């Protein structure tokens, strides 16, 4: 495992913060449109991890994550958050929602307040926190997502798309959830903005030592920021493993309509051609190191 938090305690397995048992969700049961969106899923998400969730369109990612905070009720199966079955006691559901924060796909549609400040404060206020605490959390949250303080008194509808997205994410971060789940937080943003938001989330994760689940279609982003990957395929879990183990199965991923990061594919091909390189290269930085090593050894003579 490359997970920072895990290394810190020397590889001892931490208790699972989220665990599912035979989780199944069927949409439109009893009609001709019946659709098993997730089928019989057993998984454990470790406390403190940064997990990338990938899978082709319609593989059930969004459906799966909406079970983790009780927004969707499983057709069958159980979900445990912090060891507690969340559907056992429905009165405690709101507490589960504060512990497991979920940022939806295109979250900017949820903005509604007059000012950015009030909108971010919506979640913390629902938690029943004091004014001072709410104020502190709002300011912390905007700092984490990189929204300038001057925007706080503006109407959220006057912001640009990217700013709206950040404010919406801040609205969830301000609840300081133990688990932060983001469903394609960077869809439709420019590459620079994407990188910035994700770096900020990563930084936040490192400071807070919380658990983050990042649903993404970009293998590059997952390889760069996550410590482990959950691969979904046709309503089931195909793999749940470290970045190395998953992305080294380039051929299998391709068959599923996914692909490893481009740079990984380049190195995979290089290795197949007989160059002395490792194939577990997931970022351009890794690649640079590898190439430098190879060139300095001077055994690139084959080409």
């Amino acid at each position, binding site marked *: 495992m490359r997970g920072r938090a895990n290394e810190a305690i020397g590889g001892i397995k931490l208790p699972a913060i989220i665990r599912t048992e035979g989780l199944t969700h069927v949409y439109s049961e009893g009609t001709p449109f019946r659709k098993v969106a997730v089928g019989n899923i057993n998984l454990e998400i470790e406390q403190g991890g940064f997990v990338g969730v990938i899978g082709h369109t319609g593989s059930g990612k969004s459906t799966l994550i*909406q079970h983790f905070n009780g927004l969707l009720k499983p057709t069958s199966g159980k979900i445990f958050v912090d060891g507690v079955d969340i559907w056992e006691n429905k009165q405690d559901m709101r507490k589960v929602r504060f512990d497991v924060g979920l940022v939806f796909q295109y979250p900017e549609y*949820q903005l509604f307040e007059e000012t950015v400040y009030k909108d971010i404060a919506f979640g913390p206020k629902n938690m029943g926190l004091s004014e001072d605490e709410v104020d502190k959390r709002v300011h912390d949250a905007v700092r984490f997502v990189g929204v300038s303080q001057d925007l706080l008194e503006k109407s959220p509808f006057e912001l640009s798309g990217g700013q709206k997205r950040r404010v919406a994410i801040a609205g969830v971060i301000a609840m300081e959830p133990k688990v932060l789940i983001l469903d394609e937080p960077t869809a439709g943003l420019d590459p620079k903005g994407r990188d910035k938001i994700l770096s900020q989330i990563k930084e936040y994760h490192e400071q807070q030592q919380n658990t983050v689940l990042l649903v993404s279609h970009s293998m590059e982003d997952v390889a760069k920021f996550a410590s482990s990957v959950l691969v979904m395929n046709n309503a089931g879990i195909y793999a749940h493993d470290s970045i190395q183990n998953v992305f080294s199965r380039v051929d299998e991923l391709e068959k599923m309509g996914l692909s490893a990061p481009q740079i990984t594919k380049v190195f995979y091909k290089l290795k197949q051609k007989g160059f002395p390189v490792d194939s577990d290269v997931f970022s351009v930085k890794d690649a640079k190191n590898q190439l430098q090593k190879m060139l300095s050894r001077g055994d690139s003579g084959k080409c």
Partner: protein
Amino acid sequence: MLKDITIGQYFPGESFVHKLDPRMKIVLTIAYVVMLFLTNNVYGFIISVGFLVLSYSISRISFKMILKSLKPIVPIILFTAILNLFFVNGDPLFKWWVISISAQGVKLAVFMSLRVIFLIAGTSLLTYTTSPIELTDGIELLLSPLKKVKFPVHELAMMMTIALRFIPTLIEETDKIMSAQKARGADLESGGIVQRAKALIPILIPLFISAFRRAEELALAMECRCYHGDEGRTRMKQLQYSWRDAFSFILISVLIITVILINMFIKTGSF
């Protein structure tokens, strides 16, 4: 939850009923309703029910869907039944204080409830087997003679098409916004009326904003494709009557005539 609303839900298919011309289907539905209201006799009723069962079987729409379509109107059925039960005069079967129930009352209560049930079941089949677009096309064409008196048939049909098209979208959007606000701890289920009304604000505002945005985008997209109303507009799919329509038309005519004859000549089992 919100998704369980089935009124106006279309189930695509390839059956005889699906392939009928939407104009004919509307006419048939109206004829079926007329037949139901002409019926005042058990035998006539059997004909209507037979026609309904036949249509559902041919269209391969599950009979469960009838129950689903009836769910929202259960109160209306109960209300009709109770009204008939207590307020129809006749030989009392049962008397207590000011309440009296007569044999005629019971008969009428059963008959009226069945009539409403079959009415809903029959008209639901129209929306189960006809896509909203076909349906509005059919209505537009059926009403087109009214254009002569400057009635804006096309505009109305277009408005209906758009409204129908956006109902599922808006329902989906409401679901999504509700989920997003619930994820931020919005409490929609508890509290008094005032509190609940207040809890709707975080849902209604984003919903309105997105509805307006969608309307604007749609208007723009239509203008970009040179939409300018009815004049000179042609259709990609011309509706065409076929043997199926002729056959169904003859069938329902025969059935209606039979019902009328039964009413006139058979006096047993009438209501």
